[in-house]
């Protein structure tokens, strides 16, 4: 019967609601931790980049543009990332693992020192230092972005269940129960009426002037 179906649906909705709520809370907890880290690491990266860019500007001021271009034309070192996926509360977060092309990660200077100034060395060094952090930033920021999306979705689902689906089911159940009760009552009254009519026919109470009980 429809009532049983709806009661079943309501039970499922309630359970789903509880589960989703738990998911949302846990996601939120992790997200807030991650976002704090994100902000901090971003500040560090931005500061580091500013320094690196300042060194680069010094180098650019003291050297000719062609010399810098030639010096950096063929980079010795190359950074790759290995992408792994980590499943956090059914959100797939990427993990970036840094891999260097050559074995020695400090092997960063792609030029001889004869025609360049130390400013360029400093710039290259600071860029190399900041690069690792930047990849870390990329990983965390992507994770934050994905998690924010997931939290938003989960929150919508929780609210939809809580404020729309569950009240609707409850209303329907109440309506059906009342209708059934009403039917039952009217059936009882009808029976009582029929019974009294039959008794009336058999015993002829009214003719004997007796009261119906």
């Amino acid at each position: 019967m429809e009532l049983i179906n709806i009661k079943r649906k309501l039970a499922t909705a309630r359970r789903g609601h509880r589960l989703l709520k738990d998911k949302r809370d846990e996601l939120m907890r992790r997200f807030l931790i991650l976002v704090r880290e994100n902000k901090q690491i971003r500040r560090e990266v931005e500061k580091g980049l500013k320094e690196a860019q300042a060194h680069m500007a010094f180098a650019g001021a003291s050297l000719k543009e062609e010399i810098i271009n030639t010096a950096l034309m063929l980079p010795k070192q190359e950074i790759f990332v290995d992408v792994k996926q980590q499943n956090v509360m059914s959100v797939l977060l990427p993990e970036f693992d840094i891999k260097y092309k050559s074995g020695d990660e400090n092997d960063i200077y792609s030029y001889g020192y004869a025609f360049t100034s130390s400013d360029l060395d400093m710039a290259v060094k600071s860029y190399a230092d900041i690069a690792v952090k930047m990849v870390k930033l990329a990983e965390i920021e992507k994770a934050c972005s994905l998690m924010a999306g997931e939290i938003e979705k989960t929150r919508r689902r929780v609210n939809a269940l809580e404020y729309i689906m569950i009240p609707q089911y409850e209303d329907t159940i109440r309506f059906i129960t009342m209708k059934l009760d009403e039917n039952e009552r009217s059936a009882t009254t009808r029976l009582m009426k029929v019974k009294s009519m039959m008794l009336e026919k058999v015993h002829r109470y009214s003719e004997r002037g007796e009261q119906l009980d």
Partner: protein
Amino acid sequence: MYKIAAVGDRDSITGFASVGFSTFSTDDAVEAKKIIRSLANSQYAVIFITEKLLQLIPEEYDRYKELPVPAIIPIPGVTENTGFGLYNVGKFVERAVGSDIIN
């Protein structure tokens, strides 16, 4: 094996060439859009882009927002920094919580 790219005006990104990021210099929004699309299709996991340039093409940022790769990350350039990077992180919080509660 995925690679890392840096996109932006020339002054801001030449330095990244030294550490082995692939650099693509442009000032133009349309061109940047093309670069990002081709990078996304060719094994780039991380794309660093200057704040200034990214603000010209927010729709490209949104397009890859829900995908695990590539990660498009705004970085400050040499000039015209707006603090968009941090503002953007605040946006995540706003999206998840409803308002930016972390300072």
